[in-house]
């Protein structure tokens, strides 16, 4: 491989960089994909608990 200044440069092993790039791609997207799923589960649980509390309040004799 020839550098811009015309001197030969040693070529780095490329496979670790390719593997690293794909690992970064999948890891970031996996974290991104998990986030709304986890948030939805948490929110639904909270809202259901709130709904149940409101239901119990309505059932309670005054």
């Amino acid at each position: 491989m020839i550098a811009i200044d015309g001197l030969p440069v040693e070529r780095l092993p490329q496979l670790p960089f390719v593997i690293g790039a794909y690992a970064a791609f999948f890891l970031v997207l996996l974290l991104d994909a998990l986030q709304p799923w986890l948030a939805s589960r948490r929110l639904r649980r909270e809202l259901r608990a709130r709904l149940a509390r409101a239901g119990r309040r309505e059932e309670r004799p005054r």
Partner: protein
Amino acid sequence: MKGWLTAIHRLASPPVFYRVAGGLMPWCLALALLGGAIGLGWGLLYAPADYLQGESVRILYVHVPSAWMSLTIWAAMAGAALVALVWRTKVAEVLAVAAAPVGAAFTAITLLTGALWGRPTWGTYWVWDARLTSELVLLFLYLGVIGLHRAIEDPRRAARAASVLILIGLVNLPIIRYSVEWWSTLHQPASVRLTGSSIHPSMLWPLLVMAAATKFYFLWAWLARARVMLLATESHKQWVRELLEGARA
């Protein structure tokens, strides 16, 4: 035309949007996974190595589509932000903000994979080149939108403030796009344009398939996040109560 307008108008209703988005999401995810499998299989196993870059050219099958997505997502957010500010619809406000984490993820991938491509190709992970720096600014803008939205308690005020920032940040898109032409940069100019491409079809096709897959992934992630945000902002409404009771029954 009138039919389209009526359909769009109907989609501005949170329960309708929630239901339609829920119906679209599995299709988007399936197309993203199918496109990703084909594009990556093609790019990693069948596409040739580059005569100069060698095997590291395979990084570009994830780097370039991610870079395109980082710009596309901001443009999509700007469209939603404009609608949110002009017509003040809740769905548009949610859509404008919900895309920001996905955009930040793609921008981070662009910077990470670009650095990992740059080291064996340029001999360095990073240079303060106009393209790289403006892309880094885009990441900060995405983080700024997320931070601003979280900092304001009232969700509608938060969405409107974030929408203003999104529209201001739009200035950065032409800077990123034309940085390689306006300044002397280490980053090469665009190889794929609307008018044609300088890439051989054996490398271009897997790239385009990956570009389509990332777009479907974005649609899926965008709708998923928007649905959660809508559920949170509309949590006291009757339709959310019915939805939760229906899911429990």
